[in-house]
Structure formats: structure tokens, C-alpha cells
């Protein structure tokens, strides 16, 4: 399996994890360990930078890379402010850009996200924006200097899987930056499917965090992501809508 490169970092695991929604910090930690994930996203709003030890940060395995996110920001201005805070406090340029003015479905604002990406890229951030599965937006973000794109599979937290698959396929086909499917991945089979169609990585949170056994579910996702990627790299056989038999239209060429 080929490693994944995003900006200046290389990843052996193509499974990224979210850290919210777990019933305890130890459940989160065990899930991260079992997943072999090398990149986890943490909401800046949840981290207590003033406490001696923050309950989330203290439980993250040392080897894992931190991807702070701007969850809670409603516009570009708030997100940029949060990003600068995260960079200063957590000593990383990496940022998962989340701008959702709608607190109900947490759907990303494409206009503000594009604006913030432009600005943050200029400020030297490695920006990974959470977006709708919008192929045109992805190209605009590329031009703005994004390090990757993170289109949603279905509304966040719904576990509905890849409802946007037709658009994800277009994004993957066109993209010059890594495509990480984020949000909505409810089962390991969804993750495998995302990898099979050529996504570079997936980000999973709810499906693992609220599973009966989060640590085992993390293992299941790890295997699914590996299986899906391996299948993609091995040139998965295409589904044929009709059998290819004789060649009635071109047989005349055979003389």
C-alpha cells in the first residue's frame, strides 16, 4: 500500500480520527491506538489551553499528529482567528477548516470556506477544509492553495454513508490534492467503498465513538480502509452493465 503524502507529511495510515463524542478519554485513546491512525482532529473549543493538563490532549498517543479544527466558527473571520490561536497554542500549521453557520446540520459554508482558505494559505497554514461534495468548489480551493479537500459523504453524524458518491467520484477524478472523505461514514463498508473509488483517506468519528466497543470498531475501520485502498491500487474490476461477448459492430475488421 502506497503511503499518503499531504503537504510536508507522509502517512502510512489512511484513516484519520475525530476525538469528539467518546464516552471517556480512555475510550478515545484506545480507539486511536487500535486504529493506527497518525492524524486526529481536535476541536479547539474543547481544549482547555489554560489548564495544566487538558483531558483530550493528555490522552492522545505521542506518535499521533494533531489536526486542530475550527468547529464553532460561523464565518471566515472567526475561523482565521481560531486558526491563529490553534497555531500558537498547539504549535502546528495544520488546520481542519470548519465553517458552519448552521448549528443544526453543521453544513459548511462554501463562500466563507473559500475566503478563509485563501487567507490562511497566505498565512502559511496547511489547510484541510471540510466542504460539500462540490467539484467546482474543490478546484477553486486548489487554486486558493488548499493542502487537501475534505468533502462530506453525507450529513455529519448521520452514519448514512456515501450519499454523495457521484460527486465524490468527480472530485477524485479531477483533484490535484488529496481527497479525504469526511462526515457520514457510518460503517467500515462505507470506508472501504470510499477507498475503493479512490479517496486518499477517510475521517471517521461518530461511528467509532458511539459504537458499543469503540476500540474494536476502530480496528474494524482500520482493516476496511486498508482493504479498500489495496483494492483500489490493485485495479478493482469494473462492474459491467452487460456481458461483453462477441463484437458484432467491429468484427468486420478481423477480415
Amino acid at each position, binding site marked *: 500500500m502506497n503511503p499518503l503524502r499531504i503537504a510536508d507529511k507522509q502517512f502510512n495510515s489512511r484513516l484519520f480520527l475525530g476525538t*469528539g*463524542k*467518546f*464516552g*471517556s*478519554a480512555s475510550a478515545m485513546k484506545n480507539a486511536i491506538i487500535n486504529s493506527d491512525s497518525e492524524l486526529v482532529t481536535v*476541536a*479547539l*473549543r*474543547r*481544549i*482547555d489551553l489554560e489548564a495544566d493538563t487538558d*483531558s483530550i490532549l493528555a490522552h492522545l498517543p505521542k506518535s499521533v499528529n494533531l489536526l486542530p479544527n475550527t468547529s*464553532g*466558527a*460561523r464565518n471566515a*473571520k*472567526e475561523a482565521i*482567528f*481560531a486558526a491563529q*490561536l490553534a497555531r500558537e497554542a498547539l504549535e502546528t500549521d495544520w488546520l481542519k477548516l470548519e465553517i458552519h*453557520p*448552521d*448549528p*443544526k*446540520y453543521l453544513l459548511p459554508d462554501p463562500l466563507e470556506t473559500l475566503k478563509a482558505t485563501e487567507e490562511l494559505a497566505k498565512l502559511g497554514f496547511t489547510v484541510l477544509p471540510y466542504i460539500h461534495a462540490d467539484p467546482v468548489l474543490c478546484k477553486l480551493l486548489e487554486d486558493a492553495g488548499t493542502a487537501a479537500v475534505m468533502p462530506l459523504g453525507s450529513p455529519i*453524524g*448521520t*452514519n448514512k454513508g456515501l450519499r454523495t458518491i457521484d460527486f465524490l467520484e468527480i472530485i477524485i477524478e479531477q483533484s490535484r490534492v488529496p481527497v479525504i472523505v469526511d462526515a457520514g461514514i457510518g460503517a467500515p463498508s462505507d470506508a472501504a467503498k470510499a477507498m475503493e473509488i479512490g479517496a486518499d483517506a477517510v475521517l471517521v468519528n*461518530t461511528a467509532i*465513538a*458511539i459504537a458499543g466497543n469503540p476500540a474494536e470498531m476502530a480496528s474494524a475501520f482500520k482493516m476496511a480502509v486498508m482493504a479498500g485502498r489495496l483494492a483500489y491500487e490493485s485495479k478493482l474490476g469494473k462492474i459491467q452493465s452487460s456481458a461483453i461477448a462477441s463484437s458484432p459492430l467491429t468484427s468486420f475488421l478481423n477480415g
Partner: protein
Amino acid sequence: MGSFIETFNTLSWDQIKESIYSKTEKDVLCALSSSKLSLEDFKSLVSPAAEPFLEQMAAKSSELTQKRYGKTIQLYAPMYLSNECNNICTYCGFSLTNKVRRKTLSDDEIIREIKSLKKSGVNHILLVTGEANHTVNINYFLRAIELIKPYFANISIEFQPLSIEEYRQVHDAGVHSVLVYQETYHKDVYKSYHTKGKKSNFDYRLETPDRIGDAEIHKTGLGVLLGLEDWRVDSYFCAAHLDYLEKKFWKTKYSISFPRMRPAEGIIEPNVIVTDRNLVQLLTAYRLFNEDVELSISTRESEHFRNNIIPLGVTSMSAGSKTNPGGYAVEPESLEQFEVSDERMVQEIVELIKGKGYEAVYKDWDRKFSQTYA
């Protein structure tokens, strides 16, 4: 664009009551099997016909809440800044004619209270006052918020209804959420409980969440005072209010609280008894109706109730609360607005939450987010 009053005026208390009480088992089963519930479904779920389905409602509520919020419960604590009040609200311990010593915290006292409260680990604070415009007004609020802001990640307020301009000011000063309960949506009954003072203006209070939305405050808290009127009908109005607000102010987050009348100094008995079973029915009905709305349970509720409500759909709980100005450090013995039922310390509540397989979240906001407004 008008306000909720226009919608409210199309609603008839009596017709809604009749509709709720005529719901059948079939209506309830239909609501339980839907994935997107309507206000009609909400009526079914709060109706007497839904009472035999409490376990199914709780199971669905638990599942939906975990999907949206995970296994977490947010913690907050109230801080009473003042019990001065010019309103007569016949059920409230701070009511104008109650012979209690009036107290408004000074700057020094606010700091002493904050430091004491902060030791408990609480990072989300709810500021509460009565309504006394001469002394406890926007200037007092802004000063108090300025003092409190450096110590807490998230500030909510439960003050008297303010103007849009005043809400903008408190927003820019760092307030995240505003709570304003209609108490009851029955206009005539409302007038009988609120006999004097600005609070007696039903319409002004009813339009308050519109003003909060216009001021772009992050979160609005709604609720009815359970015990004043028929909770099923009142809660339907509140759900309709929520529905209206969500469509109009789509950037605002919403929470519902369930203040249930408790004994307070010189106070009337509840007009309607809302039982634990009723409250569970109501709370789970809200969750089934709205997967996203925050549901909050305070220390008004008993230990027994709070011990068991955690996995049923609640998203936030208060802990270690004092409901008297100065209750944490300055004057711990003074009179409370209402008698706290669950007197356990914050740490005990954290352990309780943990024991249920949930994580207590101290911090889910950062005050620095609001620095961009300044």
C-alpha cells in the same frame, strides 16, 4: 419580517388542547416510526396516548442524542448576580413583595464568587438576575461580563428581556447564549401570575427570542415553567416557537430547559403537578421532534431523577448550583430563588456522569472566539 406573535396569534390554546387529548395510539405509533417529525407528531408524543410508549420514546431519544452529541454531557453552573426585582411573579422567591433581603453583587463580590466557583472546575457559567432596571441594567451587565469573561470559556445569561441593541452589546462583550423562558404561553394565565412590573407584558417577552436572533447571539434557550399550566399544551407552544425560530434564525442554536416548580419562600403551590413520568415523556418528545436541540436539566431536579435521566436525551446539566447572589463565597447562607434539590458537588456529578458511561464536558467553547467581535 414580523415576529413570533403573528404565528402565535394563529394558534388557539383550546383547539390545540383538544387536538392533543384526542390523539390515539395509532398517531403515536406513526410519530414513533417517522424519521422527520412534524408539530402534529410532537402533539402525539406529548399526549396521554403516548404514555404507554415511554420506553420506546426513551430508547429512540437515547439513540438520536448519541448520534448527535455522542456520549457527552455538558456541565454548567449558575451564578446569581442580584435578587433585586420590581416584578411580582407569584411563584418566584425574588418577587417584589417577598420580604427577603435584596442583594446585588459588587465588583469585589463578583470576583470572590468567580474564584470560588472556578475552583470546582466549571468553565461554562450562567449569569442570573431579577429585573431591577435602576440598578441592575445594561451598564451593570456589561461591567459584570467584563469581570467574568477572563475566567470562563462560555457565558450564558438569564436577565430580563433586553432590546436588540442591548443584546448586540452583550454579544460583543462575550455572551454566548441567552435564556428567556416564556413561563406559560397561555396569555390570560400568564397575566394572573405576573401581576406587576415589566414582566407583565406578555407580548414583549414573547418577542424576545426574535430580538436575540436579530442580535446574532449564538444560542437561545426556551422553556416553560412546568407547574403553571397544562404542560402538554404549553410545551406544544414552545415547540412551535422553536420551529418558527429555527427557520427564521437558522444560524442560532437552541436549547430547551425544563424548570419544574419547586418550593420557594412564600410561594404558591404548583397549579399542575408534572410527574417524573411526565417530564421524561416531555424531554424525549422534544428529542424525537428535534434531533439537534440541546436539552438541559438543572439541580431543581432530585438526585434520583438526575441519576437516571443522563442517557435519555439530556445534553447539559448544572452542578453544585447556588441560586442566591453570593451563594458560593460571599453570603452562602442567604435566601435562594428556589430550593436546590440536588445539592451534590460538581465532582460528584462528574463521577455520576462517568458511571453512566458518559463524559462530562467542562469546556465546549472558547471565549477567544468572541474576541473577533470587538
